[in-house]
């Protein structure tokens, strides 16, 4: 398995580097955003001295590089720091919330929603893709293609509203609010998150299904497929036993990409269904310039992206004997 391990290590190293750069970018962009936490929190009521008091309290008066280095230092020791919000006002001890406590429950929610969408859409996409490739050019194929195309062609929020109209307003199957809380029981949770999950599925299935189909069809032109044909292997067997094993790499890549999207790119869905996920948190944190929280979210997102890609790479290695058993 040594090539796998090699890649994993190399990717992880690169990943850490990436994380570092990302944090730098995010940090500096927040710096360049107009206004700071104090002003954002106090809004219209901001007074110069109150804002100044906030700056002092939060150490925003220190030079940028210093604050960044402090942050990096803490992260190195596994401390994501405290949210700006709720720093003990005048007098009183620092009563601010650790970023972890802020993110953990929401991350759980995000992952829950993502896995719900993934568990159904990935197998479904694969199935559709394979069958479409199998009955290529048939009505079924065209139908699946057209349908999936259409679903990705609508703006996310629009799909969401339509689903709400149908499933909550008319049919009353699912609630339009997915406001789950940590104590929500599992099945209730599933029921509540149904609509957002469906929305996400509709958005991602198309991409994965089409890649599956394309990858397989692409291989159908290769000589060893013809060979299998001349060995009298049946069409379905050819696709499943000869084409699919060689098609994993591209497919898994797309799957990874979409799974990443499920975690990272769902702000809109969170807004529409009032789902307490990390995306919304990050947007809020950005608008209130709550640097530690923004940073943490960005790190989580970047990490997701990196890990999923790593996973994709590993799969493409172990499904490819050339890489797995080098000469």
């Amino acid at each position, binding site marked *: 398995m040594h090539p796998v391990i090699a890649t994993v290590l190399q990717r992880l190293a690169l990943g850490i580097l990436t994380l570092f750069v990302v944090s730098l970018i995010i940090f500096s962009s927040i710096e360049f955003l107009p206004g700071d936490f104090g002003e954002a929190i106090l809004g219209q009521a901001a007074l110069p001295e109150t804002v100044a008091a906030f700056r002092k309290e939060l150490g925003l008066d220190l030079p940028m590089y210093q604050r960044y280095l402090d942050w990096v230092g803490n992260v190195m020791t596994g401390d994501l720091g405290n949210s700006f919000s709720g720093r003990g006002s005048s007098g009183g001890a620092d009563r601010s919330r650790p970023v972890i406590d802020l993110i953990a429950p929401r991350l759980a929610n995000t992952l829950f929603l993502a896995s719900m969408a993934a568990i159904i859409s990935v197998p479904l996409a694969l199935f559709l893709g394979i069958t479409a490739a199998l009955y290529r050019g048939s009505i079924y194929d065209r139908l699946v293609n057209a349908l999936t195309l259409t679903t990705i062609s609508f703006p996310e929020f629009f799909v969401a509203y339509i689903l709400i109209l149908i499933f909550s307003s008319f049919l009353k199957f699912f609630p339009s609010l997915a406001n789950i809380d940590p104590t929500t029981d599992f099945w209730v949770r599933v029921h509540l998150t149904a609509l957002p999950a469906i929305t996400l599925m509709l958005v991602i299935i198309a991409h994965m299904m089409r890649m599956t189909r394309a990858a397989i069809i692409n291989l159908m032109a290769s000589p060893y497929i013809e060979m299998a044909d001349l*060995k009298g292997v049946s069409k379905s067997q050819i696709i499943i036993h000869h084409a699919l094993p060689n098609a994993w790499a591209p497919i898994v890549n797309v799957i990874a990409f979409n799974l990443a999207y499920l975690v990272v790119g769902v702000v809109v869905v969170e807004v529409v269904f009032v789902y307490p996920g990390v995306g919304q948190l990050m947007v809020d944190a950005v608008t209130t310039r709550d640097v530690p929280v923004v940073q943490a979210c960005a790190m989580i997102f970047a990490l997701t992206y990196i890990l999923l890609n790593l996973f994709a790479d590993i799969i493409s290695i172990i499904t490819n004997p050339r890489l797995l058993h080098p000469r």
Partner: protein
Amino acid sequence: MNTKNRGEKGDILLEMKDIVIDGYSDDRWHEIIKGVDLTLRRGEVMGLIGESGAGKSTLGLASMGFARPGCRITSGSIMFDGIDLMKASEAEKRKLRGSRIAYVAQSAAASFNPSHKLIEQAVEATVRHGITPEQEAKSDAKKLFADLQLPNPDNIGDRYPHQVSGGQLQRVMTAMAMSSRPDLIIFDEPTTALDVTTQVEVLASMRQIVEQYHTAAIYITHDLAVVAQMADVIKVLRYGETVENADTRTMLSNPEKEYTQSLWSVRSIEKDEEESKDIILKIENVDAGYGGGIKVLDKVSIDVPRGHTVAVVGESGSGKSTAARVITGLLPPSKGRVLFNGQPLPLALKDRGIEQLKKIQMIYQSADTAMNPRHTVRDVIGRPLEFYLGLKGKALDKRLLELLELIELDETFVDRLPAEMSGGQKQRVCIARALAAEPELIICDEVTSALDQIVQKGILSLLLRLQKELGITYIFITHDIATVKAISDQIVVMFQGGVVEQGMKSEILSPPFPDYTKLLLSSVPEMDPDWLTGLLKERSEEQTSV
């Protein structure tokens, strides 16, 4: 025993009558096979030969009732052992394929599924068709591996395709075909992709096993010498029609049709060598390698006399192409130097000036990849004229036409795209591109090996003519001895990155030989049907068996 009176012929196994096959290309259906008959008896081996485009493979596949995507069998009858394949359903035909009719493809490397083990693939058909249970099939396959003289037959099957050499793969594929003990095997150019020395071994093992199991076979190739060793009868195809049918020996000794004769005569050009002391290019003990320190060239020294041709021969991996890359500067050597007209050339491409680049040109093996598919002939030939000689407008057009004339093409080609020309025409355009720079030295890298023999002949004589007229020097990289004979004055034999010997053609091609040269030369098939038998006997006597 020899191919002539191999076991008495059985009854008729395969009978194809008046087969017509259409191919779809360019939004139209064309007839590729125009009413061909073919009859094959049990245990008989038929050689099917012709140039590319003759329809050999298509006909061969048709004998399995199979048509490639973009082809369709429009009329005719195919009777295989009493079964009418034209009427048979897909399912019925599937039952036959891989059980009673087997296929051995041209490129083993591409025809094995990279993600399954060899043995799995070897027994797949047999097992799927339920002829023999898996375990049995596997042990049998190992036996076949042994019969085909594959190294350690017991575990080679557990390897993946990329882990074994091309020659071995080709044999595994033969075993795969054999595993169901079919009545008929279609060999589709099974040795074309192999080096000569490997080819001999593979041919030998194939013939041996076919005889052993008394299997009928259709052997498709464009190489007469090869077919001579394998076939009992030969069928010559051209443009989808039968040119002639005959028993091998008669076909070889006195072919009727003059097309057949022309095929036979391809190998007859012979250039008489000339001595010369005027060295234009000198490579002095060059070492070179790619990346991770593996040496591909080891102390290589070659002298190239002005106005003459040096043929660099060797098998794939012998480093002959690498030598070319060193000369062109694409691969700066780690040691040694390259002298051109007595002056040392900058080793790296980027350090060479226009004048130096201009003087050394290159022609590639495959014109398809050597010409930008989006560029017309004008672009291809015109660019060097513009780039090196700064020609424009009228002057450029004039020169363009001259060059076309030189390579025996007319002005109608000026605006053609590569896709609109035949392989030979493309190769000629590539030559013209090289000439356009008015070079002193042209490196020809396997320029004929991708072409049909008649076309080869044309290209070779063109090159010879140009050399006479323009006094250009050639470095001719090839693995085909016939070509060497045809064009070279001097020969450099390379093996595993080193020069085995260099000298005048006559010396090299006449005994005494160093071992490798001998192996190389002796492995080149000859028209004599008994050649292979003889060679094998000879080699076994010398215990230099493979």
